[in-house]
């Protein structure tokens, strides 16, 4: 187990280095360099030189990289020249709002996705299974922003049941105080994730139902309810734990789109606006932050898998 942990953490560090090099390299792809993109077409050579010097872009790439990583490790995430705030301040403002959206969506989607997935597997090929499978196929194939637009059209434009935009307040407390405005964004987000969980849960339970331990449990005379919820369900949850770790990039993607559709002022919207403004410090820091969280998520999922499933020993 210790050997596995060391090897796995070593891999994560190598991946982290590769990703950060690639991300910093990405910024240099801006035509004319990142500073030119930031300052616009009318920037004077003097200003461009000044900023290149300021950010150290006139140094060799490896020095830039070491300096940048050193700053990151000290918690300095850079400065947004367009918004005139530090990236850390920006994250402090926007991250809580994104977390509210993601956590609420995650909870709602798990509440529906897991039990319905189990139900589908137990009653496979029943009419209910076909209907639910159809719904999750729809979830896989619907662009999340289109679902948002349709819900806005039905519930905000046509019938005024819910507001069309998310709460615009800057504090988390007042966002939570206006739950009606959160309904559409959270429902849209949850539907996207629901399709993921229910389909994995269905196939995972199906795989587990034919295992020997299920036959043993039945042979002992355990009731069907006990077999499904006591044995199969617990084992199937293991695969959901892994999936949660692996789905972080799609969860981030969903959050970006939903924040743009509903004009919800979280990290996703800030990132999108930074991209439109060539605000490369924001782009760099946000991308690296999400990547680090993803790598950590994968690491924890793998370790969690080894802890939860006694058959997995390294």
């Amino acid at each position, binding site marked *: 187990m210790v050997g596995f942990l060391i090897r796995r953490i070593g891999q994560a560090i190598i991946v982290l280095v590769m990703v950060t090099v690639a991300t910093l390299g990405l910024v240099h792809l801006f035509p004319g360099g990142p500073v030119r993109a930031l300052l616009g077409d009318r920037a004077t050579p003097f200003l461009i030189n000044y900023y290149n010097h300021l950010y150290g872009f006139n140094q060799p790439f490896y020095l830039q990289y070491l300096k940048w990583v050193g700053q990151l490790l000290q918690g300095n995430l850079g400065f947004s020249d367009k918004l005139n705030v530090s990236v850390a301040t920006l994250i402090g403002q926007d991250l809580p709002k994104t977390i509210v959206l993601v956590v609420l969506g995650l909870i709602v989607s798990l509440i529906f996705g897991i039990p319905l997935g189990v139900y589908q597997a137990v009653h496979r090929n029943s009419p209910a299974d076909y209907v639910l499978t159809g719904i999750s196929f729809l979830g896989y194939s619907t662009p999340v922003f289109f679902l948002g637009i349709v819900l806005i059209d039905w519930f905000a434009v046509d019938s005024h049941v819910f507001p069309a935009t998310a709460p615009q307040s800057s504090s988390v407390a007042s966002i939570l105080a206006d739950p009606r405005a959160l309904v559409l964004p959270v429902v849209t987000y949850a539907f996207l994730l629901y399709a993921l969980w229910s389909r994995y849960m269905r196939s995972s339970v199906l795989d587990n139902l034919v295992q020997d331990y299920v036959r043993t449990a039945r042979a002992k005379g355990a009731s069907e309810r006990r077999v499904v919820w006591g044995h199969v369900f617990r084992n199937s949850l293991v695969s959901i734990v892994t999936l949660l770790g692996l789905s972080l990039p799609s969860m981030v*993607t969903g959050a970006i789109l939903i924040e743009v559709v509903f004009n919800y002022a979280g990290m996703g919207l800030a990132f999108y606006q930074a991209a439109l403004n060539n605000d490369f410090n924001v782009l760099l820091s946000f991308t690296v932050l999400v990547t680090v969280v993803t790598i950590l998520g994968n690491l924890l999922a793998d370790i969690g898998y080894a802890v939860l499933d006694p058959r997995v020993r390294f």
Partner: protein
Amino acid sequence: MSEAQAIAATEAELGLTPSDKPRGMFIRAWEVFAENKLGLAGLAFVIFILLFCFVGPHLYVTNQVNTDLTNYLCHPSGQHLLGCDDLGYDEIGRLMVGGQTSLEVGLAAAVVSVVFGTLYGAISGFAGGITDAIMMRVVDAGLSLPYLMVLIILSVIFHPTVTTIIFIIAIFYWFGVARLVRGETIALRNREYVQAVKVIGGRPLRAVIRHIVPNAIGTIIVQGTFAVADAILTLSVLGFLTLGVAPPATDWGSMLSSGLNYIQGGNYWWLIYPPGICIILTCISFNFIGDALRDAFETRLQRR
């Protein structure tokens, strides 16, 4: 009883006639595929939408080059069956042109990423050892990148055309394919027929291309089908974020994005629902086909 007679007798017992030769994998796969109604429906819709987008403009001729502001947001009528958009383009004609982009990008990005991912994964799995470890860390790194964020950055940098957007999307899909094919390769690597190549002095690339890739072709085709659906969705996302192909070219996502501007201003349903439904039906069809193909290539479901 001679040996030939004995074989014939056994075959008869098993219900085989002597004319039953082992049939090709693709014919057997098709037989299973044809039993899957959703798969067939998906295939039918894909053929329909291909005809609609690529043959349709020759039958239903509209001007998709010059704007016509006298038809600004015109309502559906006999002349414009689904109305017009904010530049006076006929909406059905727009769907055809946008669909061409979406389908071309979807199919091409899938082919590029699957071909590259297959070769990469097969070489990595076949090489093993330190080469495999390094090559797979690259895949890990790629899979942990938040792909939409990087896609947004790349689109902002390159102001993509149809060709560049194909590669920008393909960059992010081949990682998953590579990991999958590597797994298959490791399972196949120690089979006798692959080892035999090494024994008779064949080059490793030959073992990969002639023996490993054909044996993993089922997995590869299934992944390719799902990749088409994903690429079409990804393109629509970029279009929605106004980072897709530049006008006058368009795609279904860009159409949705411009339609969104009029959502509060009245009932302009034809600007939003037709492109959205096209995206959904096309992606669902490719997903259905992928699911049916997965069953079709699974050997235990095939009749021999």
